[in-house]
């Protein structure tokens, strides 16, 4: 039986959303004859086990102290050793900052091919084919592997989240027999900058403000709209450069690439650098007073008007609709 290994990245004591997307994919493949395994660094919480086990045949947790904090070397060595012991055909992980940081090292350790930031996987092909955006999404490249195992990292929000109840797999805790000597990097501290906040890469709804917001104080109205929709606020490069918003919220080439269900672009012109970071959003709504703004070339719906009137009006309407 072909085996798949899914690396489960955690946030607090829960799997990250992108990991659940992969586990949903795994659950589907489990019914198509794949044996699906998952790996988590550190002891798996009860909540994590409940979410993960219905999707897999086995979940292994590596409990070594050196794996308590993320280091690329530590995670890479642990994962590569685990791969050698279970021999999966494909290794899947989210294309998060962590996933994209340590999986390339695993690829070198295993002499395996890696396709980073995939938005589609064609499992029926052999070798498996991957679709990934290049040149900031202006073209897609179809890639395949020359050997197995192969490694794929997937862009958050690209695969449906549809895990269902299922026969729970086995849960195993073990040590990778790794020590602090195996890792040359030492984590001094990890500061929680945005406690509990959903990262823009994993948000279902993003309301992004540009220079047209006129000042940092006006982002409160975007915060209100985003909160109402269960989303987060994004920012353009110029807004981040002006220190109105945090770098972590920047959407675009020099910031983050996002694919939410709904992207509302407010008072931003749509510089190509920005488009590159949000073009794979499912539905894009643009609000700008300049009808010639480039963002309208990339939007599904556009409102040419004064954002300071349109945004509060939308917020009021949504409140009414949602009965809030």
């Amino acid at each position, binding site marked *: 039986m072909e085996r798949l290994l899914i690396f489960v990245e955690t946030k607090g004591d829960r799997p990250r959303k992108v990991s659940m997307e992969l586990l949903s994919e795994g659950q589907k493949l489990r019914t198509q004859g794949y044996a699906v395994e998952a790996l988590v660094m550190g002891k798996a919480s009860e909540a994590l086990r409940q979410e993960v086990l219905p999707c897999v045949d086995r979940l292994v947790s590596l409990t070594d102290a050196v794996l308590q904090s993320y280091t*690329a*070397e530590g995670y890479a060595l642990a994962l590569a050793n685990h791969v050698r012991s279970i021999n999966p055909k494909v290794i899947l992980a989210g294309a*998060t*900052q962590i996933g*994209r*940081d*340590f*999986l*390339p*090292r695993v*690829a070198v350790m295993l002499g395996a*091919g*890696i*396709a*980073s930031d995939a938005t589609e996987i064609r499992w029926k092909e052999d070798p498996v084919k991957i679709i*990934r955006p*290049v*040149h*900031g*999404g202006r*073209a*897609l*490249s*179809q*890639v*395949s*592997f*020359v*050997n197995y195992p192969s490694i794929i990292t997937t862009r958050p929000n690209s695969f449906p989240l549809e895990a269902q109840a299922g026969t729970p797999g086995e849960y195993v805790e073990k040590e990778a027999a790794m020590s602090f000597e195996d890792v*040359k*990097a*030492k984590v001094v501290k*990890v*500061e929680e900058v*945005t*406690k509990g*906040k959903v990262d823009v890469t994993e948000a279902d*709804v993003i309301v992004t403000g540009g220079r047209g917001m006129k000042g940092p104080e006006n982002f409160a109205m975007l915060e209100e709209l985003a909160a109402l*929709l269960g989303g987060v606020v994004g920012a353009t490069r110029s807004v981040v450069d002006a220190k109105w918003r945090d770098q972590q919220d920047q959407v675009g*080439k020099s910031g983050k690439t996002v694919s939410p269900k*709904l992207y509302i672009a407010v008072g931003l012109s749509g510089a190509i650098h920005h488009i590159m970071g949000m*073009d*794979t959003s*499912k*539905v894009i*709504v643009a609000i700008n007073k300049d009808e010639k703004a480039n963002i309208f070339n*990339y939007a*599904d*719906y*556009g*409102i040419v*008007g*004064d954002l300071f*009137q*349109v945004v509060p*009006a939308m917020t009021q*309407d*949504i409140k009414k*609709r*949602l009965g809030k």
Partner: protein
Amino acid sequence: MNIVVLAKQVPDPEAFVEIRGDGTGLEIEPKFATNLFDEFALEEALRIREKHGGKVKVITLGGGKATEVLRTGIAMGADEALLLDDPAFFDGDGYATALALSRAIKKDPFDVVLCGKQATDDDRGEIGPMVAQFLNVPHVGGITKLEIADGKATAESPIEGNKAVVEVSLPAVFTTAKGLNEARVPLITGVMKAMKVQIPKATPSELGLSQEELGKTGSKVRIERYLPPKKRAGVRLITGDAAEAAAEAVRILVDEVRVI
């Protein structure tokens, strides 16, 4: 302190990208720029040298315009450059490219290797971590702060909403993200120097590599074809005054496309 920067000349982000009729390749308007993230690497290398002494070497892999990034590096103040322009090096995946670059780095002693966290053309973001693994040294990815003292480096990198502070012994690789620094504009004297400088090259055999290990043949991943991205139908403009347009937009989002 021996500082190495891996840098890449990439199509200008505004350059026109078109897929060849048969999907086998891309036609890209010939406008080029230094990869955005590599500019931070170049700048940081120069700042480290200014503080600790030593030399900065810039390495790139590629033909044609690739060498321009080396001249940019020298114009900014780098001491040396090295070009891998044998066609055997070309068209590799991350693995084959990182193998060649790691061998090029190893030709001379090195303490710090810097490169952008990803290139804005292939968008793979694999080279830094892979080079670190080939060199068997630690790396810290996507750094926004770097301090070096007593043979050690302390780097900050934002990871999924947290900020990690990581200490590594040198040699080590760092991939650079926005927020690390502001790249300097080269002085005219630097530009003059860069125009005249002879750029040394290294061949596969000088790096102890065979053709089979490099480029397309050495790759673990093959690009089979290019496909166009999904096209949007074109914008539907919602008219009316602010209140009317807002109401209509909300109606569409709730009732038609059902994303709210």
